[in-house]
C-alpha cells in the first residue's frame, strides 16, 4: 500500500498528459472527421481524394506517423518540433480518418427522403445538415464512435515513442526500475476507469439517440 502511494504521483502525472492529448484529439478530430465524411458523402469529386487520404492514414501505423511528424518533417523543414504539438496533430489527423469513414457510413444509410423533406421546406443546406441529417447520423454511428473513443484511450500510450511521458510509459519505467508489476496494475485500473467513463457517456448518449424511431 505504501508502495502504491509512492508510485502513484508519476502515474497520475502521466495520466494527466494522456488525458490532455485525448481531449484535444476528440475535440478536433471529431469535427474534422465530420467535415471529411460529409464531403465524401455529398461532393462527388471530393470522394476519391478523401478515399486516398483515409486509405493512407488508416493504412500506416500511427507509430510510423508519429515518427514522421516528429523526426522526418524537421529534417525537411529545419525546425525544432514541439513533442506535444507533434503528437496531438498526428493523433488528430489519424483519428479524423477513422471518424470520417464512420460518419460516411452513418450518412449513407439516411433515406434520401429526409434530405428531400428538408429541401422542399426551403431549408438551407447547412440547416438541413444540422437539424435533420446529423442527429440521425449520430444515432447510426454512436456505438462505432464509442469503439474508436475507447481505442484512443489506449492509443495515447504510443506518445511514448516520441518521448512524451504518458501514463503507460511512466508505469513501465517503474516496473523496469523496481521489477514489480504494481505500476502496470495501477495503470490498468486508470485505463479501465477512463474507458468506463467513456462507456458511461456512451450509454447516456445511447439512451437519447439509440431509442426506436
Amino acid at each position: 500500500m505504501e508502495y502504491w502511494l509512492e508510485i502513484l504521483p508519476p502515474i497520475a502525472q502521466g495520466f494527466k498528459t494522456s488525458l490532455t492529448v485525448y481531449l484535444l484529439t476528440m475535440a478536433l478530430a471529431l469535427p474534422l472527421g465530420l467535415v471529411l465524411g460529409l464531403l465524401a458523402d455529398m461532393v462527388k469529386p471530393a470522394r476519391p481524394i478523401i478515399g486516398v487520404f483515409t486509405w493512407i492514414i488508416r493504412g500506416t501505423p500511427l507509430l510510423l506517423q508519429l515518427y514522421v511528424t516528429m523526426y522526418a518533417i524537421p529534417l525537411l523543414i529545419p525546425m525544432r518540433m514541439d513533442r506535444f504539438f507533434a503528437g496531438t496533430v498526428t493523433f488528430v489527423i489519424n483519428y479524423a480518418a477513422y471518424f470520417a469513414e464512420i460518419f460516411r457510413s452513418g450518412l449513407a444509410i439516411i433515406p434520401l427522403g429526409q434530405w428531400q423533406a428538408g429541401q422542399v421546406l426551403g431549408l438551407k443546406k447547412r440547416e438541413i445538415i444540422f437539424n435533420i441529417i446529423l442527429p440521425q447520423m449520430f444515432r447510426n454511428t454512436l456505438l462505432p464512435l464509442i469503439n474508436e473513443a475507447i481505442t484512443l484511450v489506449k492509443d495515447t500510450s504510443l506518445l511514448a515513442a516520441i518521448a512524451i511521458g504518458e501514463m503507460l510509459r511512466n508505469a513501465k519505467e517503474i516496473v523496469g526500475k523496481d521489477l514489480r508489476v504494481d505500476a502496470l496494475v495501477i495503470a490498468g485500473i486508470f485505463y479501465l476507469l477512463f474507458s468506463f467513463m467513456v462507456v458511461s457517456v456512451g450509454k447516456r448518449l445511447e439512451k437519447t439517440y439509440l431509442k426506436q424511431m
Partner: protein
Amino acid sequence: MLKLQNITYAYDQEPILKGIGFSVNEGEILGILGLSGSGKTTLLKIISGLLVPDEGEYLIENQPAFIKQKKSDKVASELGVVFQQFNLFPHLSVLDNLVMPLRLRTKKPKSECIATAVELLDVLGLKDQIAKFPYQCSGGQQQRIAIARALVLNPKILLIDEPTSSLDKENTKKVEELLKSLHGRGLTLIIITHDLPFAQAMCQRVIELSEGRVVFDGLAESYFNA
C-alpha cells in the same frame, strides 16, 4: 404561375415522362390523376425541384426554375410539398416536426412558433399527438402531420401527393375544409390523387397522365361528366 413545357424524365434509361406540358395559374386548384405508376410522383418531384428534368422547360413566375441544373431559390420558398410517404423527421416529436422548419424559416421566437404549430395540429385533430414521435402515430395521423408540416410555412403553392390515402371520411372532410379555406386566402393547389370523390369536390381543373403523357387537360366538370 408555373409553366412546364415538353418535360421528359427517365430513371436509368427507363423513360417515365415523355413530354409533359401544362401550366398552373395563380389561385387555381389543379388535380393530377392517372394510374398507379403513370409518373405522378415523378412529376411532383420535378415541380418541387428535387429531380432535374432531362429535357424541357419549367418556369416559375416566368423565371427558369432550374439554372444550370440547380433549382432556383424561388422553388423552395414558394412551394410546399406533402410526400406520398410523408418523410416525417423520425428524430423529432410531432410538434418539433413543425416547429423546427418554422423557426428556421421565419426566425420568429420559439413560443410563437409553437403556438402556430399547435393551432394547426389542432385543426387537423392531432392535439393529443403533439408530444409523440412519428413512429408512435397511426397511418392517418402521420399523413395529417405531413400535411400540417407543409402548411405551417404558409407556402404560395401547395403540392400534395395522395393527401387522403390513409384518411377516413371524417378526416378527409377536415383536410378538405382546411385546404379550401387556405385556397380562399390565395393558396394555389396541385393535388395528386386517385380519390375521385375528393378530386371532384376539390379541383377546378384536372390533368390526367397516362404512359408519360398528358391525355386530358381541362375543367374538372367536363372530366367527371365525361
